[in-house]
């Protein structure tokens, strides 16, 4: 169903879809972002599959039981869980148009996220110091790829969070910033969902093996 209107300077008719109607900006952003998250989910699924296949190939090197400190993992998990709920509070205060409180909750979320990354990097440094490097065995290659990819996502989320705090500080809770905070909310909670898989299949089942 195309209609010719507005002949351009060259005299050629311009065609467009008659039933095309304008959508407000960001109309399809949340669905688009959700589909991105689903594709990210597939990346993690492949990394989980690789870990599932290679997770027991220690090459006479250290096993999960020798490496993982479940107390530390529990602390790390609680950091991520707390950052999820504080991000939830940021979204709630955003809905009430309370800029200062939104910023405060975003900051607290960022601090929990940074604590998570800090603990993870400490754990990695400790493992590498003990000789449990990614080159040591297939298990460790798969471990560092999976957990490292998750950590990289959280780090990117932190950069995004800081960017949005500056945006909110400069422009306030405008429609575009609300949409961006909504996307980051989905991203952040999605990473928490992935972490459930990580602590269950990598750490808990690893120590159990």
């Amino acid at each position: 169903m195309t209609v010719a209107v507005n002949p351009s300077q060259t005299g050629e008719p311009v065609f467009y879809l008659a039933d095309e109607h304008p959508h407000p900006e960001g109309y399809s952003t949340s669905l688009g972002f959700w589909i991105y998250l689903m594709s990210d989910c597939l990346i993690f699924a492949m990394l989980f599959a690789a870990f599932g296949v290679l997770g027991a190939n220690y090459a006479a090197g250290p096993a999960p039981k020798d490496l993982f400190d479940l107390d530390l993992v529990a602390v790390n998990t609680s950091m991520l869980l707390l950052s999820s709920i504080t991000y939830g509070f940021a979204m709630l205060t955003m809905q009430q148009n309370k800029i200062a409180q939104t910023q405060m909750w975003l900051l607290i979320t960022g601090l929990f996220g940074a604590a998570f990354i800090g603990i993870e990097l400490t754990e990695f440094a400790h493992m590498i110091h003990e000789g449990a490097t990614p080159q040591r065995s297939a298990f460790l290659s798969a471990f560092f790829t999976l957990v490292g990819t998750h950590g990289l996502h959280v780090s990117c989320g932190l950069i995004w969070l800081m960017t949005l705090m500056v945006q909110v500080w400069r422009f306030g809770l405008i429609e575009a910033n609300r949409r961006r905070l909504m996307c980051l909310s989905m991203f952040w909670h999605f990473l928490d969902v992935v972490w459930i898989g990580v602590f269950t299949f990598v750490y808990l089942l690893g120590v159990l093996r």
Partner: protein
Amino acid sequence: MSTNTHAAGAHDHHHDDGHGHSTFSGYMLGFVLSVVLTAIPFWLVMSGALPSKQITALVIMAFAVVQIVVHMIYFLHMNTKSENGWSMMALIFTIVMVVIALSGSLWVMNHLNSNMMPIHEMTGMK
């Protein structure tokens, strides 16, 4: 149906339209459930409360699945209506892909692994 939603949605669609309305009680309920669903598996593994490792493994995997569903509902605000159901469609498609990829990889590679095992032992490789 699509014309209906388009007509209604063209001007009223906001960021939060497709994702339900988040409430304080919703977030708190989700948080409390996640804490419980995280704490129990950690405690089971750390204390060795269950008699066999197989049972413990199955139980903590069940807890993980439940916790993922809790996060999906209370934190990601998933429901069958968001984005006219397209979010749920994308999610179901992804779950199908993930299940095929994960179970397929583990199944095939496990068989390959058990068929390779005697050769490893015969050549004395570690």
